[in-house]
């Protein structure tokens, strides 16, 4: 946060709804990750910094699925990797099961890694092409001293069955599988050590539509069966809505809105969320013709020199003077719905009932009501 915003902003609470059984699993507070840009030949001086993740706080409760959405370059993957401690944080803390893991040494991190696993986007790149599936799945077991050879072997077979592959596939190489099957192997590898939290970074983006649905359903089933907690990163808002209990929207290194899933789609408060939802094509010709799309101008600005004030203001159609000057803090809008905006939208609408599922109605994402909320202040 900048100087003019209170630096004591509380972490985003995870009460809302969600399958979470209440127990706090992870709390990230004021996480910052800046990547230095160096220049010079011998003495590499730091000339600038990429503000990849800039003061993000979020809570995660056991059993829930948190969706992370945003355009490419918004820092959602970096945040996930900070949480998994795949690289050191610039500042801030990540408390996982009551232990601050942000400063742990490699050795001390090792037991934490069992509990916290990742699934990556590209199942072609994340599996070693020279290893058989059996090796890919038994490596984590061996590294963490899972047990003797027979126990490892049994676990590998168990894992293959768990993700819907045949145990006979144990001696095959990754190239002998289709994209969807490879992603299943990636999921099995993540599950090997009975983790509590799985961070899935665009796990279905590289897959065809029909295969995508299969993998999503698999992740869904596994969550029920193994009581997993997910952080699910995706840019496909349809997929995120389907899997998530809560959703955090990121823009240029910041969380701009976080809300129970269904509520976010019916009552987006932040103009960026509204625009993001409006940009999703609707697979229904009549609805698609009827709706008015908000087309955001331009690209995401550079995270090296982010815009002043609200980072979204150069592309925001509601922006006024204050937006360029003051960074809006995350404010609470009831039921665990928070947003950081000077000109919040859809405040008149009632909060969506938690965990609706079926009664959401077809008019959900059509941002029709939003037009009435143009701020009263003088436009820039």
């Amino acid at each position, binding site marked *: 946060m900048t100087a003019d915003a209170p630096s004591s902003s509380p972490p985003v609470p995870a009460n809302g709804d969600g399958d979470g059984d209440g127990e706090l699993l992870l709390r990230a507070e004021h996480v910052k990750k800046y990547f230095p840009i160096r220049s010079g030949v011998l003495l590499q001086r730091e000339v600038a910094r990429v503000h990849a993740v800039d003061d993000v706080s979020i809570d995660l409760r056991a059993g829930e699925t948190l969706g992370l959405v945003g*355009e*490419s370059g918004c820092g959602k993957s970096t945040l996930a990797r900070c949480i998994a401690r795949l690289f050191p944080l610039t500042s801030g803390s990540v408390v996982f099961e009551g232990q601050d893991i942000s400063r742990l040494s490699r050795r001390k991190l090792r037991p934490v890694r069992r509990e916290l696993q990742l699934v990556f986007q590209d199942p072609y790149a994340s599996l070693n092409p020279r290893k058989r599936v059996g090796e890919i799945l038994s490596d984590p077991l061996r590294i963490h001293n899972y047990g003797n050879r027979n126990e490892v072997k049994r676990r590998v077979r168990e894992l293959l069955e768990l993700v819907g592959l045949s145990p006979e596939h144990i001696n095959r190489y990754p190239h002998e599988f*289709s994209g*969807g099957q490879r992603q299943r192997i990636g999921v099995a590898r993540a599950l090997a050590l009975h983790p509590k939290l799985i961070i899935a970074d665009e796990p279905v983006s590289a897959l*065809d*539509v*029909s*295969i*995508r*649905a*299969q993998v*999503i*359903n698999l992740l*869904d089933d596994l969550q029920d069966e193994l009581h997993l907690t997910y952080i699910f990163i995706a*840019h*496909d*808002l*349809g*997929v995120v*809505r*389907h899997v998530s209990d809560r959703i955090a929207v990121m823009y240029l290194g910041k969380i701009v809105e976080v809300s129970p899933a*269904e509520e976010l*789609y019916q009552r987006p408060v932040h103009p960026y969320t509204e*625009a*993001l*939802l*409006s*940009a*999703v*094509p*609707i*697979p*229904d*010709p*009549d*609805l*698609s013709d009827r709706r008015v*799309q908000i*087309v*955001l*101008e331009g*690209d995401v600005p550079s995270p090296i020199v982010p815009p002043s004030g609200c980072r979204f203001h150069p592309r925001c159609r509601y922006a006024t003077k204050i937006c360029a000057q003051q960074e809006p803090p995350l404010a609470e809008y009831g039921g665990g719905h928070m947003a950081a905006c000077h000109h919040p939208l859809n405040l008149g609408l009632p909060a969506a009932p938690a965990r*609706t*599922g*079926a*009664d*959401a*109605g*077809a008019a*959900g*994402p*059509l941002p029709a009501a939003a037009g009435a909320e143009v701020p009263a202040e003088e436009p820039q």
Partner: protein
Amino acid sequence: MTGEPLLEVRDLKVSFRTEDGLVQAVDGVSLSLSQGETLGIVGESGSGKSVTMMSVMRLISDPNARFEGEVLYKGRDLMTLKAEQIREIRGTGIAMIFQDPMTSLNPVYRVGWQITEQIRAHENVSKQAARARAIELLAAVGIPQAAERVDNYPHEFSGGMRQRVMIAMAVSCNPDILIADEPTTALDVTIQAQILSLLRKLKDEFGTAVVLITHDMGVVADMADRIAVMYAGRIVEQGSRREVFYDAQHPYTWGLLGSIARLDRPKPRRLATIPGQPPSLLRLPEGCAFGDRCAHRFELCDERPPLLNRVDGNHLDACHLEPKQKKELRETTIHPELIETAE
């Protein structure tokens, strides 16, 4: 959208000889495209949608490829043209944009140079005139400060901007037909919306016919006048946008419509899936290629492949099921959650 078709593909077959055998990538595709029309081609990877359109442009130079059938553009069969003749048609008659703008732009030349090269290849204009046209085009596709950006290299543009440059290049010689092969797949939704609205604008302004290849049903619902659904090298269903979305006939189309996690409907408890995976193009089944994954398969499906039949008007469908049966089966396949909640 009436009169003579601008482009007509008749029974196009494309196969590749490989070490493992003959891959039948396109198996008897027939399509037509009229002036100003947008045809959406949807299907999964490997369904032959790109190969079909690459063949139309004669862009496949693989010596192991074999082509059969006719591609009539304004009455001329493109398949029989000589290399020089086809080169004249590319760019001025039919132009193409690809999925990944980074690999389809040359990284070592300035974008302005790449656009002017194309203009000068087709028209006898001076360098200055071509450059002025390039700047004009870049401005028309929404690149700010086009006069300066014309001297930038591709890496200095963002993904969305690069795709705009590709579009500028494609429309530089006012083609009759623009083939867009997954033009927005590599882009974010917000940028996708920008590019699609740009394509729509160009289409309205210049009356260009567009072939839009995509796997995203949302994009075709938004853009296409007519839609062809491809599976394993064949067209399994073809019709107007509303016919395909509201009166889908083929179980594969049902599967595609059902497996999208969509925002305009209540959230289903589970996504409908199409079980299994597409068949290998090396060994297509004797009957219906979709048979293995189809919940409604019966004896006939294994005996012979269904032919593309007229449902009504221009709505075509290749499935052995009776139209009446389909009406009953369709809703349960596309929206199982509606049935579930009704119970």
